[in-house]
């Protein structure tokens, strides 16, 4: 497997300019002859599809939702980072770059992260020009706030729905192109496989979720922007439909999958309320700006929050990380919560929760000020829990939120399959082992607006447009495989529902490959998952037919892929004998903090599929740090 990242030479500040100059250009008159498939319509997919169509390419865009506006980017609450330094607090591209590399626990690729920081400023300009209503202060200028893991105020936000507003911006740009006829949009269409011709990605096979029809689409290049795989845990903050299928199918067709074990557990989610729980709800990290996290100093303390006097409360983040306090990065805050809960000091009936308390801020700033900042979040919390966070502290617990791992890409965002590009959460490149708050929106849009529209041209310039159409036998073959698989799912006619299996897999993953991992647990999961998979194919019960809308069938296909992917994830976690960012191996710690092993693991682990998951080959892309010094990541 060729893992040459093809990073341009020269000083890091100049690399992107260098690459943009090196890339071959496609003659403007020829652009319309090239067709590009974009799978996914979230921030990365919508922005890429729109930008490519603006350049003149013919674009086909696919999403499984009923409208591109519903992609799960929409749910991001807190904000988007940009090194604008509008606050004059010492921010710069270099500082954003440094914070991101450090925040990722030195497991990201320097050159990509630097480019991300450079493009961050353009994203804000672009979004404002599109009419995204960012928060403003009374001077009419853009407002900022600080976010976990940063000591500068560089986060732009739109009340508690930055994700929706940015996505609506990208969706508007995409809609404009659809209206102009340059993008053909396929709603309710799920990519079920990638089609390669002579080693190059040349199309996809999709299932129309309304008619059930399986169809091929050919193109000159394919962009995968299908998000992360957090739903392998069943319970996560991802949307119910989020899945690994597109990425996993591409992986099975030969794309390297990098660092699948890197998952982010977000510290501020609403705790599980019962077995019926279908998903978890995040409370924006921005709440930690004014909320203080605490538990009782006593184990098994059953007193109500207001009955516990101040000196019996343990504000453990402030105690352990005095300089960052409640704003410690996500992985650290999550782990600290787990630690106090493991210590028997968790709150509520389950003991799986900690307090996020606004009492002091309300006293200091007054309720109206807190309401103005977080009103909609408090409202949402109250709706879900029936508790009033103005009167009693919020209960929070960590939950799976984001996956840093993903399909391996080079500097140009091209995967190991030529012609297949991967953008946004679906790729692996920018966040290392942990993502900082407000960086996901930044990366999705950076990839889609500013990177892939350039780099894909470099690939296309070497390709004859329209070289392959869907009459090519490869398409027939893959279509047949997809149809067979669907038929097999319907033919099992077992006894257990798809959700049964998904819940079971989720629990196995959470126990074995969750917030803290160890060898024994991972090995157990690696033994359990194949058994589960076997049972799935013998005992799953999917009713109805393949020729109509069939939501159980859709779910079954996704869970079948999770059942394969979960095993790879555990294998990756087992192989990474160190702790870094979101990957915490209990065997590798110093005083409860993650202990990295830079000597042996300063690399991205890239998996190659060879037929059976247990035979997958682990390759390495060595990460070179020329510009930042590898250091123990300290937030104390």
């Amino acid at each position, binding site marked *: 497997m060729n893992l040459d990242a093809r990073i341009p030479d020269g000083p890091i500040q100049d690399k992107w300019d260098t690459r943009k100059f090196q890339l071959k250009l496609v003659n403007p008159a020829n652009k319309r002859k090239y067709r590009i498939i974009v799978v996914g319509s979230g921030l990365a997919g919508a*922005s890429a599809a729109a*930008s490519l169509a*603006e350049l003149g390419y013919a674009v086909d865009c696919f999403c499984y*939702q*009923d*409208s591109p*506006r*519903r*992609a*799960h980017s*929409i749910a991001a609450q807190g904000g988007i980072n940009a090194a*604008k330094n509008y606050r004059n607090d010492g921010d710069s591209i270099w500082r954003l770059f440094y914070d991101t590399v450090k925040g990722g626990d030195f497991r990201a690729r320097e050159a990509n992260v630097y480019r991300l920081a450079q493009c961050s400023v*353009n994203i*804000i*300009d*672009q979004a*404002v*020009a*599109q*009419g995204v*209503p*960012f*928060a*403003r*202060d*009374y001077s*009419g*200028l*853009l407002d900022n706030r600080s976010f976990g893991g940063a000591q500068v105020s560089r986060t732009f936000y*739109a*009340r508690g729905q930055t*994700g*929706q507003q940015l996505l*609506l911006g990208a*969706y508007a*740009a995409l*809609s404009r192109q*659809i*209206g102009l006829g340059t993008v053909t949009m396929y*709603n309710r269409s799920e990519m079920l496989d990638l089609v390669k011709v002579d080693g190059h990605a040349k199309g996809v096979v999709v299932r129309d979720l309304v008619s059930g029809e399986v169809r091929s689409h050919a193109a000159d290049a394919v962009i995968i922007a299908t998000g992360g795989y957090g739903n392998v845990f069943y319970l996560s903050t991802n*949307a*119910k439909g989020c899945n690994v299928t597109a990425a996993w199918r591409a992986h099975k067709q030969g794309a390297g999958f990098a660092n699948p074990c890197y998952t982010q557990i977000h510290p501020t989610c609403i705790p599980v309320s*019962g077995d*019926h729980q*279908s998903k978890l*709800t995040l409370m924006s990290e921005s709440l930690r700006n004014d909320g203080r996290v605490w538990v009782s100093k006593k184990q098994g303390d059953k007193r109500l929050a207001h009955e516990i006097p101040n000196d019996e409360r343990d504000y453990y983040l402030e105690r352990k990380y005095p300089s960052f306090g409640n704003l410690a990065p996500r992985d650290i805050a999550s782990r600290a919560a787990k630690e106090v809960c493991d210590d028997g000091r968790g709150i509520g009936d389950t003991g799986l929760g900690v307090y996020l308390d606004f009492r002091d801020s309300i006293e200091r700033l007054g309720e109206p000020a807190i309401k103005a900042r977080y009103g909609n979040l408090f409202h*949402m919390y109250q*709706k*879900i829990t*029936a508790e009033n966070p103005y009167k009693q502290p919020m209960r929070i617990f960590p939950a799976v939120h984001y996956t840093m791992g993903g399909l391996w890409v080079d500097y140009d965002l091209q995967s190991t399959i030529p012609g297949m590009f991967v953008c946004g959460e679906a790729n692996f490149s920018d966040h290392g082992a942990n993502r900082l708050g407000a960086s996901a929106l930044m990366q999705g849009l950076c990839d889609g*607006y*500013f990177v892939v*529209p350039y780099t894909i041209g470099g690939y296309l310039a070497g390709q004859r447009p329209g070289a392959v159409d869907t009459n090519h036998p490869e398409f027939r073959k893959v279509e047949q495989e997809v149809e067979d698989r669907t038929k097999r799912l319907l033919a099992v006619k077992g*006894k257990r*529902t798809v*959700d049964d299996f998904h819940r079971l897999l989720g629990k196995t993953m959470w126990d074995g490959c969750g917030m803290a991992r160890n060898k024994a647990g991972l090995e157990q999961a690696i033994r359990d998952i194949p058994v589960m998979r076997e049972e799935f194919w013998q005992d799953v*019960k999917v*009713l109805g037919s393949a020729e109509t*809308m069939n939501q*159980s069938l859709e779910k079954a296909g996704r869970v079948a892929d999770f059942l394969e992917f979960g095993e790879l994830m555990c294998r990756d976690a087992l192989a990474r004998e160190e702790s870094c960012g979101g990957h915490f191996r209990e065997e590798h710690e110093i005083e409860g903090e993650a202990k990295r092993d830079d000597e042996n693991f300063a690399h991205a682990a890239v998996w190659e599929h060879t037929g059976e998951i247990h035979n997958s080959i682990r390759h390495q892309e060595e990460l070179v740090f020329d510009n930042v010094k590898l250091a123990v990541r300290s937030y104390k």
Partner: protein
Amino acid sequence: MKVKLHIWRQSKKSTRKDFKQDGKMVCYEVDHVSPDMSFLEMLDVLNEDLIRSGEEPVAFDHDCREGICGSCGVMIDGVAHGPEKGTTTCQLHMRSFQDGAEIYIEPWRASAFPVIRDLVVDRAAFDRVVQSGAYISVNTGAPQDANAIPIPKPDADKAFDAATCIGCGACVASCKNASAMLFVGAKISHFAHLPQGKVEREQRARNLVEQMDEEGFGNCTNQYECEAVCPKEIPIRVIADMNREFLRAKAKEE
């Protein structure tokens, strides 16, 4: 808790000619419902029961389950998204219902939203309205610095109030006339309050209204049911904004 559900079941897609397509209300009982469940989790429980008993589960749209993607939405006892104000169906919890309650669940009803299956409707009409002009025609590139155009906070707030629309379609479903004017008004109002949006304001107002009419939505008779059920509580002010923008555009048309 225990609830008795009456749910619209329809296996074939509606067509312009035949909207009902042999659909009918079917009664189901669900026990072991917890008050902490969301409404959709209650439907999950029903569906698991149905699958185990060999009956096809009820199809319904949903995705984020945190009230922002706008996928979910059903009529609950004749009210879009159910009895709680400013709440999507996924954020509605069973504690809002009495034990033993009898609940009627129907899909959005509008000729512009044909039923695809059970409670799932086709809302592509909304997308087409947006495609007709609910955007600012700016290409990806290097626009001026974001702070180059200050926007008075009250204007920015008004734009935001309109931009919170999640496109769920509850406004259409609840309107006695199946009018989409709250949705379209929100789009027009969002851009009308921003300096960036002013350049194309007339064209936008004309095109959106034209597309809205073409889709076969009804006409607003100012009953404000849409405002009452909107999960993002978008004010009917946006409809007045749209009317003004449209009049202005028509008056200036050459």
